[in-house]
């Protein structure tokens, strides 16, 4: 199973990589929305979940979300926003644009793993 992390923070991608390793998933990475589209184009058939930051240079997460949800190849891949954006209006905006879940930074490794499993329909902590 493959996950895609789209986040401009190297350390956040490292943290997500740590969670992926624990879950024995492969993690693909991108630093912004433009790179995320490139990675997605090559791997979309294998990606089970996208973990998406909002504020990134170049193409931001919301723009990326809108693009992929309008593309038949990508629209069914679930997306979890992983962001510092905590304002209610932004959460609603992302959900309306097609995000399946929304996790606000900061987060613990345990919470991240639990939320990834929930997004994949595989339950929470009991899974591992």
């Amino acid at each position, binding site marked *: 199973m493959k996950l895609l992390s789209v986040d401009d*923070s190297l*350390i*956040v991608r*490292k943290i997500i990589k740590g969670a992926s390793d624990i879950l024995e998933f492969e993690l693909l990475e991108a630093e912004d929305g433009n790179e995320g589209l490139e990675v997605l184009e090559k791997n979309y058939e294998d990606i089970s979940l996208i973990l998406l930051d909002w504020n990134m*240079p170049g193409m931001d997460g919301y723009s990326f979300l809108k693009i992929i949800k309008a593309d038949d190849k990508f629209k069914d891949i679930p997306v979890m926003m992983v962001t*510092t954006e*905590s304002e209610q209006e932004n959460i609603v905006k992302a959900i309306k644009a097609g995000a399946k879940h929304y996790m606000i930074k*900061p*987060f613990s490794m345990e919470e991240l793993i639990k939320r990834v499993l929930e997004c994949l329909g595989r339950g929470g902590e009991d899974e591992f």
Partner: protein
Amino acid sequence: MNFKDSNYMIIENAFSTAFSDVIETMTGLMVKDLDINEENEISNDTDISGAMLLKGRCSGFSTISMKKRSASVLVAYMTGIPHYKLNDEEIFDGVAELINLLSGRAKTILKGSEFHFELSPPFTIVGENHYILYKGKSDVFRKIYYIGNILVELNIYFAS
């Protein structure tokens, strides 16, 4: 203290709460705060600082400063990667992410108040014994935190 003591306390509480929330959540380490005195002041003994600009009712500048070794330990706890395996880019990015998270958390706490602000992207300043000078008429909230045996200094400069 200045900037009308009550206003200062509102901002101090927001950033203190944010600091503890972020560090404890991301690292699992407990945070203890201290008022700065001559014995624990580390402003002139830091190698790395994360910083962000604050723009709003209270415009200013937020920084966290520490020794590079301390930063590597914090980032190690955040990522699960041993500190000696972290490269400079990872350490610097980790410090930037910490200031990003804590400033963002403080922003959320102050949302709806008269001290709401927006944030610049975070950046990291690196240099042995560096000192940050923020010019302009401003008050400063300064605090030292113990995280385990790591010392981190939080500075919030805000123009009143």
